[in-house]
């Protein structure tokens, strides 16, 4: 039903049998009222947010580590993500017209929060079809990867008075990366990288890479 076209109040013939849709329109001033009393939060549109370290880690994971060692990768990811946050992501995040300095005390708290987030994340992965009891450790490692990849966003949420809205997209990007990477699981190629949870870890990294790179532009 073409609502877009009939935004101007002039006479029009509607093919819709439900007149109520065209009769009342969303008030257009609603959008402005939201941003009036809260300080702007956004990530600057700059190439600096591109998380190149994720590609490096991915290269290590796929080519260098033996047998796709996701645990070592997890240990490696933590310092890299902290470095990325302090050197790249935080320096591009604008809150209330200025860039906030990195609060070192907040970093461990956020890491703790990230760890806590792994539990709901694990639950969601299982609800979407991961094995329930078998391979629980692997599934948790995957959840940990996903949450840690979202760590800069978690920090920013903490730092910016829990305004979730602007940082949702980073989590979504990671989730979409995982979702798409499920494609390779059923294929009968019998490759070692098809084993749970390798494809999803890779998908999460790629999703995060794309998300953090183009996130500010969305």
């Amino acid at each position, binding site marked *: 039903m073409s609502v877009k076209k009939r935004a101007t109040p002039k006479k029009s013939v509607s093919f819709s*049998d439900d007149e109520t849709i*065209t009769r009342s*329109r969303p008030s257009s001033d609603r*959008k402005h009222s939201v941003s009036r009393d809260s300080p702007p939060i956004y990530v600057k549109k700059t190439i600096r947010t591109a998380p190149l370290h994720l590609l490096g880690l991915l290269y290590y994971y796929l080519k260098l580590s033996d047998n796709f060692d996701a645990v070592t990768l997890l240990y490696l990811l933590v310092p890299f993500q902290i470095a990325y946050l302090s050197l790249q992501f935080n320096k591009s995040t604008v809150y209330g017209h200025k860039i906030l300095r990195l609060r070192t005390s907040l970093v461990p708290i956020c890491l703790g929060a990230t760890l806590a987030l792994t539990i709901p994340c694990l639950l969601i992965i*299982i609800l*979407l*079809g991961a094995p329930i009891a078998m391979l629980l450790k692997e599934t948790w490692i995957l959840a940990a990867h996903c949450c840690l990849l979202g760590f800069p966003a978690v920090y920013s949420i903490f730092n910016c008075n829990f305004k979730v809205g602007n940082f*949702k997209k980073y989590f979504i990007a990671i989730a979409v990366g995982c979702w798409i990477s499920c494609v390779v699981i*059923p294929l*009968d190629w019998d490759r070692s990288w098809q084993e749970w949870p390798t494809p999803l870890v890779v998908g999460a990294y790629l999703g995060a890479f794309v998300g953090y790179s183009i996130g500010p532009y969305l």
Partner: protein
Amino acid sequence: MSPIDVSDETRVKKSIFNSSIEDKRLHWSRLQRFKTTHRLYIYLMGSLAILQIIAIMFFAKGFLLTRNVLDDVATDVLSEQKFSKCVILVIDALRFDFTIPVNSADHKYNPNYHNNFDVFHTYGNESSSLLLKFLADPPTTTLQRLKGLTTGSLPTFIDAGSNFDGSVIEEDNIIKQMYLHNKTVYFAGDDTWDALFKPFLSPSSKPFESLNVWDLDTVDNGVIDFFEQHLLADAAKSSNWDILIGHMLGIDHVGHKYGPDHFTMKEKQLQANDFIKQICGKIDDDTLLVVMGDHGMDHTGNHGGDSRAELEAALWLYSKQPKMWRNFDSSYYNVTSLGESYRHVHQIDLVPSIALLLGLPIPFNNIGWPIEEIARTGEDLDSYRRITVNQIRDYNEVSKVINDPRKKEELEELWNSALLDSSKAYEYQQLFLESCKDLWARFDYSSIATGIALLTASLVLLIIITKLIPSIVIGQMVSEFVPSITIISLISNVCFSGIFYVLHQPAFLGNWFWCSLLATAIGIISGCLITILDRYNASWLCRKFVEDLSDYWSRIAALFITLHALLFTSNSFTIWEDRIVGFFLATLGLLTLYEFTFLPKRRLTTALLAAAMGERRNSAQGKQPLESISESPLGRFARLVGAYHSVVLIMCTRLASTITICREEQGEYCQATFTTANNYSYWSLLLCLVVIAFLPTCVKGYYNVCSSYQAAAPIWIGQFLRWALLVNFVYWAICALENTIPGFSWDVKILKLTISRIIAGFSLIAANVGWMMGPLCVKLNIHNNDVKSQQATILGYTNVYGSQFFLLVINFLLCIMLFNKPLAQISLFLMCNQLLSLLEIFDLLKLKENLIGPVAMGLLAYQQFFSTGHQATIPAVQWDVGFVLTERITFPFTHLGITMNTFGPHILIALSVALLTLWKQPPTVLKPQTLLARVVSNCGMLLIYNTVLCLSSFVWVTHFRRHLMVWKIFCPRFMFASLTLIVIQVVIVLVTIAFASGRLIRQINNLFWK
């Protein structure tokens, strides 16, 4: 409102709905118009259904192969007769590893089915004994195997469909040859033989009902008695048979009923073992004993496909004379690791072997090769080879099956070398066999293309008619569609049959039947197109198509349809369809959960919600105080409720998907939970009891949202549903007792049949007749009993359509529950929750007209298809539920059971897709025509979804026609897609639109009209 007498409800109704004669007349004429439109709608949707069915028929005709059967009968007898009498014992599903000694240390060793047959290796040098691995050709269904075993040829896939009514075999076969050479053939056992070979069997034969898989003993005891009478008893010597055939079904039935790993398997195997020993003791030197399995069984005990375990049967040739067989070196008969490398022969090789040993001509169509061990001397071997190769060459010359000149030449060369050296003859047979296999997999591309084209056309029409053209316009256009379709179908029928009779074109049609089908299909297509193009042009339709896909949820729906259709591009995805569909449904649940939690601003969604709010504001003017309108279009409570329903949807989906019957190809990655043991275990029965308690309560909860749990609802849900479920539970509890308690000796057949017939009769007939009476779920609630301010509220007013329609769904649910095993019943319970939660979610998000609604329902149907213990394979069909209502195969009842079992979730969804429109639809808001048009539009979307899947399966099964897995994965999936589409079409057109919607809308509009 006038003062009313509180005590008299009918008078209250009257006074509320009272109005002038003028109004009444207007209303009456409107209803009359509705009736006409409704009839026309049925006709329109019916003709689209016919179009799709014709498309499927054409495709199936082209794709499911058939083989030309020659009537020639072989006559030359060239071999010397070694035995004058023969005893053939077919033990159905005698898998090879049952017959060989298995080391109990082997990890695959199972005491229930291994090492029970010692008869095959206890006979030493004083007699001749030969045990071979006997490879069946797929499909491993008994009818196909019997044809292969007696004709020496390869039956094609199409025969699999006629397993239920085997008709007399026309080809030359070994039984016919025995009969023609004056051998008296006595037979006892599986009545498939009787159907196939009736003219050739002696009248003293005793066939037994074969397909009742729950009966383990009747056939076996019958066979044993028959043999007792004619062979084993001392007085039986005088019996004048030459050939004695027995076909025992016990082991096969144990497999179907319990799976191989069950104590009854051991009992049946030991019984058969003793029986064979007795036969061995009684036959004379001039008698050949052949014991064989016609196919194996897979790990679940079923068969029909082509896995190794299904293909490997056993063959045992025995004679009291020593040194009849010239066995190979013992390394050929290696029994380690379940006889993996044991010497094997093909099933078609049996026919020439028996024919040669009995001195009969080899049946004309044979393409098998004699088993080499039966030749006692080198001369014998040479003559056997020559006889067989001559027969095969005769067949080749007469049948002219080989057309490829290069193949012909190659065969000719081999033939010439075989004339010189008989050991080369084997190569000739091998090449010929391979060529035949290739050839009998040749498709009729014209029919396939016609099928695909017609289905594509039907898809386009469905999209245009139910989605692109605004439903209100379609309501006016149906009166143009119907005459146009009728007239053009007639015209095209005349044209086509004229051309067909005069010019014999198009040639691929074959006969007038297919010609008129094609003509009708083309008539329907052009009839619709003419009417559509009369009003709209193609570019407008294209623009509308793009526009329809412009909002977020429609795109999600389109994404799901596309991804689901793309699953058929790969065998891996098709194998894992069960998990993938569950994944999609859970994803959808997460998306709606996200929507309710964060309420992202989407232009169209917001517009819809705001519009809906405006509607509420208008309709509620002055009547009741409005809840304070918050900034966000969905209230906090609505968001909470929506999130709750999303969680219910996700959880139920995940829980249901733990119930699975694994495909064989899923291998170690899948743990089957839908097993016979689990189905009849105490905990699953306990869960069923929980379901009985909870299902009515859950449904009641959903009804209470709109306080619709009034009047008819407590009767239906609180009484009918609860009691029928309880009786149903008794039925399945008895089945479980029968299955789990060894030596359960009570005869409960009558009791079971009585119970099942009561439930089926009640749910299908009585309850539906009751529904036709119009069980309203509303109640007049009259408060303020003081005289001044009298006010009546109609409880359940907002959901008056939905609550009544769902009662019909409950009727069907009851019937489907009866035909589903306990674990599947639990899955169906979860389905009810998923279904109602979906309805609530789409109502809250105001997505009633969106594409996502029917697509989500379609996904739900597929997910439930898999979690009720099905897979898109032939062995996974639960044939045994065919015997719930009757003891033997009776036309509508057996088929009803299997249909209800296999397509249960799809039937439920095809019904409840109308609920997308009707759920929480208060009366008097929409005109009856509009309501009907919307129902049809949603039904159309479900049909579009399934048509896309069917079309995709058509295209990909054609593309993969030479794929290794085509008969195992792609072809069953295509058959399943076609059958699903047909079932959904039939239910939607006949029940949802014709029966239910029309009646319901008329009734409600009669009551609540303004």
